[in-house]
């Protein structure tokens, strides 16, 4: 086996086995810190030994065994600590063992612990990327343009809080489950969005590593909770958004809006999978299960990805779906997106009036100014459009988007 093959095997094992190794160690030793360190050491040992000794027939089992040994070594080294102190450090799961089912996967416990509502949102994101996705601290810091030391401290503090406050290591009870699943999905959606529309000067406009990681984790949740409609909805939404990734930024680094993207270059496999999920949820909705926000957003994305040409877009369907979303989430951002769809159905004048009502709530939100600039441009009101573009450019953080808005502004007559 050559070096590249071993490299590939290690990458594969890391992708497929990291969360499982961390989760099984956390369960066995009751300590996230020990689990994380031992898993990292096991992978480092693999990098050292696999090139010479060959890839073991069952890499996952090899890694778990090695990590277990590393953890036991560490616990022996630290055995001078008194027992009471050690007991206080254990992660807790005092529930009687539940019958084994799809839901009783150790990785799921790990995800729920990392996304616990008693942790700050940024902490949940960092902890999930480290413990579940296996990203290193420098990788997480780079992804969110944060200092490595700050990310490291955030994770260390979180592990200390989990232990001290006794955040339980288990799947939440049935009554808490819907709220807790939606908390996990919020973390994954945030990771995806940061990848999809990365902020900051000098950053790649699209961070494929983050979008791919978010999709991978959502797939995992989907496999563990196949009955949950919002999990299916979020996965569909991510897949359909990701299907357009390569067409979203031009060769010159400029954002390409939906209507101008090369639809032939959209990824048909991702679209197919996304559409299947949307159809599954439509069937559930027809049977009386009210869809949540991710399912509605996925359905909107499905309308767009079904149109071979932007002129074939079923805008009345898009507006109807936004109407449904507004009832669920009356936020001004949803109202703004609805108005953008209304412009295609009823014309820019109607949309502009709708958008005008949102000004006091969205004055600091760049998509508001970008949408307004576009509508004013279509109505031939160049001077007002230019001012709106100026405002949008000033507020936008994504390099590709700034480039697009600047060109649009400079093309105004």
């Amino acid at each position: 086996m050559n070096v590249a093959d071993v490299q590939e095997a290690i990458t594969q094992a890391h992708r497929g086995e990291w969360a499982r190794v961390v989760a099984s160690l956390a369960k066995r030793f009751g300590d996230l810190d020990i689990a994380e360190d031992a898993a990292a050491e096991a992978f480092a040992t693999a990098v050292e030994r696999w090139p010479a000794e060959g890839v073991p027939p069952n890499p996952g089992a090899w890694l778990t065994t090695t990590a277990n040994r590393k953890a036991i070594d560490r616990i022996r080294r630290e055995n001078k600590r008194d027992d009471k102190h050690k007991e206080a450090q254990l992660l807790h799961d005092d529930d009687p063992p539940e019958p084994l089912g799809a839901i009783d996967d150790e990785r799921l416990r790990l995800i729920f612990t990392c996304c616990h509502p008693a942790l700050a949102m940024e902490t949940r994101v960092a902890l999930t990327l480290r413990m579940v996705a296996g990203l290193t601290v420098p990788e997480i810091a780079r992804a969110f343009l944060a200092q490595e030391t700050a990310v490291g401290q955030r994770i260390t503090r979180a592990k200390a809080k989990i232990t001290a406050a006794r955040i339980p290591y288990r799947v939440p009870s049935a009554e808490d489950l819907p709220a807790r699943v939606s908390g996990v999905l919020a973390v994954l959606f945030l990771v995806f969005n940061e990848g999809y529309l990365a902020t900051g000067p000098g950053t790649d406009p699209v961070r494929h590593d983050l979008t791919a990681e978010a999709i991978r984790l959502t797939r995992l949740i989907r496999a563990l909770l196949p009955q949950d409609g919002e999990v299916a909805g979020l996965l569909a939404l991510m897949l359909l958004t990701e299907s357009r990734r390569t067409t979203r930024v031009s060769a010159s680094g400029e954002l390409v809006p939906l209507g101008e993207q090369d639809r032939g270059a959209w990824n048909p496999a991702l679209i197919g999978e996304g559409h299947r999920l949307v159809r599954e949820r439509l069937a559930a909705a027809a049977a009386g299960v009210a869809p949540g926000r991710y399912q509605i957003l996925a359905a909107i994305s499905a309308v767009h990805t079904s149109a071979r040409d932007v002129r074939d877009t079923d805008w009345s369907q898009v507006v109807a779906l936004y109407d449904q979303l507004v009832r669920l989430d009356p936020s001004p951002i949803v109202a703004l997106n609805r108005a953008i769809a209304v412009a295609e159905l009823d014309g820019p004048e109607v949309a502009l009036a709708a958008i005008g009502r949102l000004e006091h709530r969205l004055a600091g939100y760049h998509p508001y100014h970008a949408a307004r600039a576009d509508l004013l441009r279509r109505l031939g009101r160049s001077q007002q459009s230019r001012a709106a573009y100026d405002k949008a450019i000033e507020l936008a953080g994504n390099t590709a988007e700034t480039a697009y808005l600047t060109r649009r502004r400079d093309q105004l007559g």
Partner: protein
Amino acid sequence: MRYLVSVITDTGALATPDEDAAIDVFNDRLQADGHWVFAGGLAAPSSATVIDGRGEEPIFTDGPFVESKEYLAGFWIMEARDLDVALRLAAEGSKACNRKVEVRPFL
């Protein structure tokens, strides 16, 4: 596992009769379900005295050790098996006393 649930207030107003009644109902349930350790309301921070007994003679200072708009109005000490249970109880306590609360584990 024990948790301190601090009641935070910034109004200076004492609990209303309705709030008192809700707190009593909540306390009865804490006792019945085995979560009760101790609870109490506190007099206004202006009634506090700070004592530094580290020197030869103790020094007494009038007033709370930290002046702030928000202050501790009372507390519960609860027994709960983990933070999920403590958070659920604290949310019910917050509703009963109609104030924000903070949950902090004992060592």
